């Protein structure tokens, strides 16, 4: 049993080294694509929570706004740490991606789009009341839209 575990660990380390040698940050292209899709899904859930408050379907809750904004900021930081936008993730082996080549051919534009997003998320996290939350929300939506228009392909 111990031997098996040791072998598995050795194999995993070996795979990790091979992965790193191939220029991948922390996993195969498929794994990274899946990770960034999970990041986007987390963002979508956070957006839904805020939109629901915006529309009055759920009552405004300052803590929930902060939690949603934190979830978006955390998901993005985690993605960056994992290297989910690594150039090797332009196409997956088996996982499909809607990431457009412009992400890598226009890296400065892509970075700027993320900065717009970061600023908008930080601003909404800092809103103290419902009125300021409502005023800050369109900038978050516009940041999502601005990036998706340019850097995400049609389904």
């Amino acid at each position, binding site marked *: 049993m111990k031997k098996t575990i040791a072998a598995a660990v050795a194999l995993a380390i070996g795979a990790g080294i091979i992965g790193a040698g191939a220029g991948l940050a922390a996993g195969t292209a498929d794994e990274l694509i899946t990770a960034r899709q999970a990041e986007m899904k987390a963002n979508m859930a956070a957006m*839904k929570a*805020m939109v629901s408050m915006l529309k009055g379907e759920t009552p405004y809750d300052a803590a929930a706004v902060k939690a949603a904004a934190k979830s978006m900021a955390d998901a993005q930081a985690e993605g960056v740490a994992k290297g989910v936008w690594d150039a090797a993730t332009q196409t997956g082996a088996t996982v499909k991606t809607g990431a457009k080549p412009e992400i890598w051919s226009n890296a400065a534009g892509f970075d700027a789009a993320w900065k717009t997003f970061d600023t908008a998320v930080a601003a909404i996290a800092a809103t103290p009341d419902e009125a300021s939350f409502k005023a800050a929300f369109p900038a978050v*939506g516009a940041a999502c839209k601005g990036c*998706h228009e340019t850097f995400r392909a*049609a389904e």
Partner: protein
Amino acid sequence: MRRRARALATISVLAVAGLALAWGMSTPHPLTAAELPAHTPDVANGKLLFNAAGCLSCHKPDAALAGSDASLPSGGSPFKTPLGTFYPPNLTPDPATGIGSWTDLDFVNAVQRGISPEGQNLIPAFPYTSYARMKTSDVLDIKAYLDSLPPVVSAEKQAEIPLPWLIRRGVGLWKHIGFDTAQWTPDDKQTADWNLGAYIANGAGHCNECHTPRNALMVFDWNRQFAGGPHPGGEGKVPSLRDLVGRGKYSDAADLASALQNGEMMGYEHLSSGGMGEVQTNLSKLPGNYVQALADYIASLK
């Protein structure tokens, strides 16, 4: 020998006749001035339809050109298609580089017949196939609105497509099978709201151009109207607009109207990619009852 000569002569005659037929069939037939309605232009309605038609999305200035006003349709931004790259022309009233010297008839022939003032067939990357369904008076209103804009000097760039002359002639042939010039007619069994939505969607809004699939000859497959299909830009897919509520994409027509009005600003994340983001930006500029009518019509598609 004589038989051979006769065969050769027959072949030549047939070839010439074939070419003449192709020439005749590919020759554009513009409208005449007598076919234009008498109309007093309404600039405000023209602006509304300019937004409904999304003119600016294609005729925007090239983003790479510094100092150009992105709110004016001065043209030049690259429009990529599988056929090649087009540079939609300047729609501002500059007489030399824009449409300042165009007559009403020139404009209607371009927008509703796909024929340039020089008498050439336009390539239907410009969706005159949908604009033909508009009321000609509405098209004249768009021209009045364009004429009211400040003129911008922006020379037309030639499209980067193979054999443009042959393609334009080919478009003339294609028009016989792929281009219906009949204007849209309201359905008396439906409400005024539904008819307004249908008119905008099928005419100025040119939704069919991307959302209705085409056959191998690039002719709309009306049996599958709005059923979605490959993206005309060559990558990805365009979603079906049928039964959006039944399929759970939107909770009801009001939800769809909110999506068209707000797009991703209200978290409707499917309305940004593939060019729909610009469409949604344009639609958000329409009066609320137009957006609602459009949503009611689209939500009614089964």
